[in-house]
């Protein structure tokens, strides 16, 4: 009891909510491992010029398809470009696309879902149908449409991921809010006459965030993979920009698949490790922000 009191007094000095969640997150070993892998890959991509001296677009036809060596850590590709440099620089775009898409979809989905789920009624019914239409719409056709109108670019990809992704986030947020709004503390806030936005966004949303957070991480992984697929079709990020997806595409060539493993194995491992680490972080975050779960 004295210890508790003491901690409480100390807790008064700093932000209690923050320190608590961080402490719980750090106790989760998998989450910390995930955070480390995530940080290493992210920092390596961001500070790529400090790590490798090669330009990812520099073509060197004299050393085509050379296997890994001290000079080229991951070897070189068909055009003699350094694969290690391409993986690092490619990470910048791939991570940006994955997070950007997931964040865009989450921002739209959560802000609509929180309010509509709380208020219900016609607003919710309309948005629910609209989200179904967007989810049922073939993504490829949407991509073709936007690419033919606006041309191929990174921003198109982000817009498309937001448009096609917000529906599932909306539905998830909404269903969370539907169950939370029956809780008595929401009724109590209503009895005080607080505004709908304040009740929905400040008091209810934090309790709905757990599953949304996990969804955000999972969809980041999904969007990274989708970027790969679209880049392969020549509809994603323009081919001259290195991305993880664009690098993997080289493996479509059978001779490269069989004989130049260094082109696709390292980048495949990096993608898997990155996606996995995001998932671990998501799980850790979910537990950390939920105060009913004891660390």
């Amino acid at each position, binding site marked *: 009891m004295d210890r508790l*009191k003491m901690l*409480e007094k100390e*807790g*008064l000095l700093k932000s*209690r*909510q923050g320190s608590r969640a961080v402490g719980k997150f750090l106790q989760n070993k998998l989450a910390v491992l995930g955070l480390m892998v995530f940080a290493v890959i992210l920092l390596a991509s961001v500070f790529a010029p400090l790590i490798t001296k090669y330009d990812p677009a520099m073509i060197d036809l004299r050393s085509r398809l050379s296997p890994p060596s001290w000079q080229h850590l991951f070897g070189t590709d068909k055009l003699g470009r350094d694969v290690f440099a391409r993986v690092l620089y490619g990470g910048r775009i791939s991570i940006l696309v994955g997070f950007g898409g997931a964040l865009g979809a989450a921002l739209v989905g959560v802000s609509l879902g929180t309010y509509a789920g709380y208020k219900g009624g016609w607003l919710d019914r309309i948005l629910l149908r609209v989200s179904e239409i967007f989810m049922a719409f073939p993504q490829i056709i949407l991509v073709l449409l936007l690419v033919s109108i606006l041309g191929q670019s990174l921003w198109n990809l982000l817009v498309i991921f937001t448009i096609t992704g917000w529906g599932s986030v909306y539905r998830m947020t909404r269903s969370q809010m539907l169950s939370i709004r029956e*809780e*008595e*503390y929401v*009724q*109590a*806030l*209503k*009895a*005080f*006459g*607080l505004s709908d936005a*304040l009740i929905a966004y*400040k*008091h209810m949303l*934090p*309790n709905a965030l757990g599953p949304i957070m996990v969804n955000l991480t999972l969809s980041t992984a999904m969007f990274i993979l989708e970027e790969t697929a679209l880049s392969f079709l020549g509809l994603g990020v323009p081919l001259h920009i290195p991305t993880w997806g664009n690098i993997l595409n080289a493996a479509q060539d059978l001779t490269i698949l069989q004989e130049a493993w260094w082109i696709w194995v390292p980048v495949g491992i990096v993608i898997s490790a990155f996606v996995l680490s995001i998932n671990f972080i998501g799980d850790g975050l979910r537990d950390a*922000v*939920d*105060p*009913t779960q004891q660390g």
Partner: protein
Amino acid sequence: MHKNSEVLLKIRNAQTYFPVQKGLLKRTVGHVRAVDKVSLNVYWGETLGLVGESGCGKTTLGKSILQLVPVTGGEFIYNFDGEEKDLRKLSKEEMMQARKRLQIVFQDPYSSLNPSFTIFGSLQDPLKKFGVKSKEERKRIIGDLLEAVNLHRDYMYRYPHEFSGGQRQRIGIARALSLQPELVICDEAVSALDVSIQAQVLNLLLELKEKHQLTYIFISHDLSVVEYMSDRIAVMYLGKIVELAQAEDLFANALHPYTQALLSAIPVAEVGRKRKRIVLEGNVPSPVNPPPGCAFHPRCPYAMEVCKSRVPELKTYVLDGKEHQVACHLAADKVGAPAKSRQAEVDSNATN
């Protein structure tokens, strides 16, 4: 300051129906009549007990008073320091101000506090909204509230999961008192607690009532608790009030067969005492499709022909010089003609 005879809240013909929707187009095929033409007065400073079995509309009536559920019809005339206004006809701004006077304590201590916020975080927004701008001031007020419900003031920095059920319920009471209300609706406020904790919380409620001159509407299915707390008791069955009297009169001379059955079910802690248990047959009828006539007639041991066709009105009888309202065709046979009809009383109130 206020006399006990002054009416704080007049409820007239309150109706809260929930639509029953079916099919793809959500056609309304019927209504659940949760609260069906309820009329009653709540006096200043009294505790009005509201009893009835699960699903009879007690909670819905409480939430209807606070306008937390969409009310279908009727009037909720509240006495704003002498000025009577219908809560349903207030403007948004007026309703917001009225909410300061009306508060509620909930049943479930586990869902009535937000798990993501400390107690301070949960309680500060209403204060902020009603003009307590400085954080220090809010801390002081919330600390005082916690002390008023016998909790340490530093507990405001804790999360709900760090408290026991009884402590949470006391925090719920502190929250209801935070804006100094006049009328507090206690919706099954102690049902979820252990008996020993129940007693603590009940005594706390009585103490706070004394201190802050509160008026309670005390909703419960537990007759002993209601008897302990209430000045007057209203018995509800299937969305209607079937009997309303002073607590001791109700327990001494229950007139409605349903009330008699309820009272006979109270366990008595006395060895060898023989009591006649009235066991009711069957189940509560569906409130979507209540039986014609008196809603209680399919289960009533004394039902007559008239009970099957005519809905009994809530009439006022005088027993030993005290008013006793009951909605039963048979009551007149037991105690003589009604003193005056309920309608007459309502009219006289309306003209006053």
